[in-house]
């Protein structure tokens, strides 16, 4: 089998050697608990503080606005549930969000609704862009918190976050944005865009799985999810994962430093990939293609009549790793709620394959993927012709 090709960077990314290097001492001699009084503790505390500062700098934030978490899901939950619960005393009950959010956001919003929140969903267009007029109307009154993801993980469309954050601010609505896919791909600056909460995930940018951060703007009242300690200003009790925090900071710095160059490279590859696919499979549909701003690395493609499950298996056995929708508990690919929300037909939803480019890909990988994908489509269509 030829060299395997990893095309699932939106799912996770390899841990960068520099990140491993930065983290290693904290699995070795610098193992202290930052809460300890003694020298081991002080050393760990210093390293943690420094990591916090460096990550904050990447976000245009202040140190006291950055809280380390176990990942993007926790950061989303902390912001949405913590933010909403804290506003219950004021009588603001509604949560505004979109149908294309990541399940971590939708799950947290759903939990809030079980606790009494009124859920309001914005309209999105066929490209997956939030209808700002819809957001405007829904956030006018009675809203505690709004959540709109910066960059969609399945189809890659980028939302007009600055506009919506501004609207929310005017109305005293807390604005949360899931920045998990966006961080490292678009400029995220808390001084320029007035979001109140932002979620970040380490394993999407070359840090290990199990680390992330929540940005919480100074002055925002937030209830914690966990109880029992004073770490992270009492907002996230539990002994800090020092090594992970250091790893996350290092990865963030590298991602931000390389951002423009890497985005340009990825966009070029993505365009080659899309061009190749469309040439060989003229009726292939690329979801979100018409959006004004798109992720540089995500291509979500459906070929009419081809089912994604069979395709993913066949691609895997050829050494190519892609994904589709989200996995259910049993481990099968479930139809994507994002594609359903943007109005894609059942047939296209059942055939959607997400390819996401990253550090492990180059022009050669794109060439081979196009070739193999086109061959498999032809075979699938040939089989379908025989079956019917």
């Amino acid at each position: 089998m030829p060299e395997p090709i990893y095309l699932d960077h939106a799912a996770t990314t390899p841990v960068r050697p520099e990140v491993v290097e930065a983290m290693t001492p904290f699995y070795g001699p610098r193992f202290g608990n930052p809460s300890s009084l003694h020298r081991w503790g002080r050393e760990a505390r210093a390293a943690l503080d420094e990591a916090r500062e460096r990550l904050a700098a990447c976000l245009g934030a202040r140190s006291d606005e950055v809280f380390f978490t176990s990942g993007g899901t926790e950061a989303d939950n902390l912001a949405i549930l913590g933010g909403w619960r804290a506003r219950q005393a004021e009588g603001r009950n509604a949560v505004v969000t979109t149908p294309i959010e990541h399940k971590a956001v939708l799950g947290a919003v759903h939990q809030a609704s079980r606790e009494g929140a009124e859920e309001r969903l914005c309209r999105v267009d066929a490209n997956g862009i939030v209808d700002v007029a819809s957001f405007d109307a829904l956030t006018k009154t009675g809203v505690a918190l709004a959540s709109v993801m910066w960059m969609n993980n399945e189809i890659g469309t980028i939302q007009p976050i600055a506009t919506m954050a501004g609207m929310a601010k005017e109305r005293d609505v807390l604005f949360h944005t899931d920045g998990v896919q966006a961080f490292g791909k678009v400029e995220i600056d808390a001084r320029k865009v007035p979001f109140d909460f932002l979620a970040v995930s380490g394993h999407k940018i070359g840090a290990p799985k199990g680390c992330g951060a929540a940005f919480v703007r100074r002055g925002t009242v937030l209830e914690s999810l966990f109880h029992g300690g004073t770490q992270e200003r009492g907002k996230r009790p539990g002994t800090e994962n020092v090594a992970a925090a250091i790893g996350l900071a290092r990865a963030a710095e590298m991602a931000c430093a390389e951002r423009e160059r890497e985005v340009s490279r990825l966009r070029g590859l993505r365009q080659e990939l899309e061009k190749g696919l469309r040439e060989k499979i003229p009726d292939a549909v690329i979801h979100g293609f018409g959006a004004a701003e798109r992720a540089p690395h995500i291509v979500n493609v459906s070929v009419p009549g081809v089912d994604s499950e069979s395709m993913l298996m066949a691609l895997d056995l050829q050494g190519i790793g892609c994904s589709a929708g989200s996995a259910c508990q049993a481990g099968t690919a479930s139809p994507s709620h994002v594609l359903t929300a943007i109005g894609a037909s059942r047939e296209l939803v059942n055939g959607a394959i997400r390819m996401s480019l990253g550090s492990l890909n180059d022009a050669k990988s794109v060439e081979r993927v196009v070739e193999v994908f086109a061959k498999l489509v032809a075979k699938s269509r040939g089989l379908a012709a025989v079956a019917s």
Partner: protein
Amino acid sequence: MSGGVDSSVAAALLVEQGYDVVGATMKLFCYGDEVPDRPCCSLDSINDARRVCQTLGVPHYVLNLEDAFGHDVVDDFVSEYSRGRTPIPCVRCNTFTKFRDLVRKADAIDARYVATGHYARMIDGALHRGLDPAKDQSYFMWGIDAGVLPRMLLPVGHQTKAETRAVARKIGLNTADKVESQDICFVPDGDHTKIIRRKLGDSAPALSRGPIMLSSGEVIGEHEGYARFTIGQRRGVPGGFPEAMYVVAIRPESRTVMVGPKEELLGRGLVVREVNWLVAADKRCRDRRLQTADRSFASGTDNARDSTFSVQIRHHAAPAAAEVIRDQDGEIELALDEPVSAITPGQSAVFYDGDRVLGGGVIEAARDAGVRAPLPILAA
């Protein structure tokens, strides 16, 4: 690969024999919270299958066949019970899900063969009973499209269950001593009325009260839904009669459950629909006198290897001699040499020539219940 020991060992044997194996577990319905843990078709069983594949060093995929299964197997299950019949979902699953829809997935990855842990054998491209008569599952496989047979591998059919478990232990498969699943995979707690209720509602006729009646027309009691009964059943039949009484018929249009003594269970013939043949026309032994096969057939004695044509009307029924007296438009009528008990609409009638499965169909009705004069012997 269901996660059970049979399919696990089937995979292991194929790997040993040098095949390039890909393990696939079918997700047939949503596991949800309401489904209690059980030996088969749970999240745990998927994990078992995954781990076995890991042990064997082969890829494992979970394939979503929920929609197709719901439509072809579960919906049919419910509608058959509504019609007063007793379905065999495993037959539908084999026919439509495993050996058709799953085969399409196999095509997508250029897999030449589809293998399962069924206790049946492929011999010279023909489907045969499994070696272990106590475990023979060929009865459930009559509906498979004949075109698929050349692509089927049934590795464990050539051995006994005990041998299969021994192989599992030897290889160190974690499923070696797993308890066997006896229930229908999608029926939680073995209570099939739950599915019917879920799909058709509480007021479904099949779950509603109705009379229990003798053939004379006398009503002797009331039942709580004819879906709870099958032909030959004793449970739920009122007592107080000089002899044992059995369910002899279900009349869904009047929600009536007919009961009677043993003799009324006997049928001298049956009508079979949805007939599927696994052999070419010249091998179907139609219009040939079928010889009685006695129970020693099942133990594999040599006289059973003679060319005989028999019909088996239940999984654990003995095959019975029969003659085809009508065959048109996919419907067959058979006359039985000796009366057979409890011929049940919805169950399968499977035609065998010795150990070889010739085909089968769905029992539409029993014919000529009660004793009838033997038919004249035709020239061979």
